[in-house]
């Protein structure tokens, strides 16, 4: 049923740390690997070895450059983006067949591919580009929050998190219940000032992003290409044995 639940018991989701993400795309690959052989139709590729390769992915990493207005050095921010499992998910209510739904128990937004007619309206309604139509299967693909991993008792406990979280070598992705204020992910959001993407759309995303910390600056608000320390400067400031040696050599 494409009516949204009034509220969900839990709000399972991701917290993505833009300060820590190194932009390695490992989450993209592990996501494709897990989800192409598990939930629903495989994530197909077209012209994979040809001139114009294209394929379905549930997670993509954009990279942005920020130039602070105070002339301090530019900053590169790697920006992974997947379904945000919105509380007011516009993709769910537009679905004419009931294929798209949001689960009342954990808030995960899923597609029942057996009922999907592939009209694409849900992808139109999503501001975040979180849904991609699979060109081979003709059904809509989206992040399932690895619903087939997180409750899977056949897996060791440390593997019961989404594939992207499990694989991230930088620890930039965190998984948990964002509806529980005491959870580690909720505390992380509070401590670091986690924010929503496109809050003006009124979608109330569950996933949060943690802002990059300000970059270290050599000379405060100095010139953009701050000169590095001059190579000879160290000797004059030497202390202890080297300072004595410095003075002794000076006297010879």
């Amino acid at each position, binding site marked *: 049923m494409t009516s949204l639940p009034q509220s969900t018991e839990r709000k399972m989701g991701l917290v993505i740390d833009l300060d820590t993400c190194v932009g390695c795309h490992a989450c993209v690959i592990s996501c494709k690997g897990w989800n192409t052989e598990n939930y629903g139709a495989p994530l197909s590729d077209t012209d994979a070895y040809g001139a114009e390769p294209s394929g379905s992915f549930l997670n993509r990493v*954009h990279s*942005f450059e*920020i130039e602070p207005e105070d002339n301090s050095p530019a900053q590169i921010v790697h920006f992974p983006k997947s379904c945000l499992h919105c509380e007011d998910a516009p993709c769910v209510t537009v679905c*004419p067949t009931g294929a798209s739904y949001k689960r009342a128990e954990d808030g995960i937004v899923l597609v029942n591919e057996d009922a999907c*007619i592939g009209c694409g309206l849900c992808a*139109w309604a999503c501001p975040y580009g979180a849904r*991609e139509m699979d060109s081979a299967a*003709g059904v809509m693909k989206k992040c399932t929050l690895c619903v087939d991993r997180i409750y899977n008792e056949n897996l060791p406990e440390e593997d019961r998190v989404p594939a992207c979280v499990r694989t991230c070598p930088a620890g930039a992705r965190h998984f948990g219940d964002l509806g529980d204020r005491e959870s580690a992910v909720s505390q992380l959001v509070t401590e670091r000032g986690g924010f929503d993407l496109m809050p003006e759309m009124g979608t109330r995303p569950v996933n949060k*992003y943690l802002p990059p910390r300000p970059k270290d600056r050599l000379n405060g608000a100095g010139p953009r290409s701050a000169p590095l320390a001059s190579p000879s400067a160290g000797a004059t400031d030497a202390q202890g044995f080297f300072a004595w040696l410095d003075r002794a050599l000076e006297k010879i």
Partner: protein
Amino acid sequence: MHPAPSVIIFTVLSGAGFGYLAFLGLGLSLDTGFTAFWQFTLAFSMAVGGLISSTFHLGNPQRALLAFTQWRTSWLSREAWAAVATLLIAGFYAIGVIFFATRITSLGWLVAAMCIATVFVTSMIYAQMATVPRWNTVLTPIYFVAAALAAGAMLAGQGATAILLLLVLTLIQIACWLRGDRRFAERGHSIASATGLGTPGSIRLFEAPHSGSNYLLKEFGFQVARRHAVKLKVICIATLGMIPVLLIFLGGGIVSLILAFAFHLAGICVSRWLFFAEAEHVVQLYYGNAPAPLGT
């Protein structure tokens, strides 16, 4: 947005078909017997042909019947119901007119009202999209209904009404373009709000997430229209409104009406192509493609 031919044909044909059916419902220029049969055949085949065309862009059209289930929340599902209900009731009305030479006036009025309602519901599929600011305005349903009625008046041979509706449609069309160009900026979407980082002038895409294309870029990243937009708009206004108005005004009976409708149909196809091709989706912000700011 990608201007899929199946969806352009759907909105143009079913709009004109339901517009014509509305005039037949009002009993304007409606005959009985064999003539009425052909009148209803034309209206039904345009409306139904459009609806069938709309299923061609589906990934799994064999499950299309499921689209009747979610009328509580989905405008697309409501559209399926509205179209089928209108065609059924219009079918009963047509049987009375064709075979019994009896026009049930109240049923006719109901048919007319339901035709307009169906076109309105179709337009809401687009107007509801908060992600496409250009569509997300009250002008979208007004434009769809006006286009359907103008086409209907021409097919029904209502010269004076057609001229009036064509002029109104032309004004609405120009209003849609003028307002549409401002919508994105008005709504305050920017790469900064999309990413939550920096300020609009200080952040830019450094590297796209993939070197090839994907569904999002094919569906939402259509750029071709912008290059020829001004020329196409001039052609659109001329063929959609001005030439048909002139042809009907100068008179000449059925031939000039058919010619006028042919021009109008071409014009409304251009208009609908621009409707899709010019529409900017907010997801493009993540790909560094913001619409040009106002005044450029």
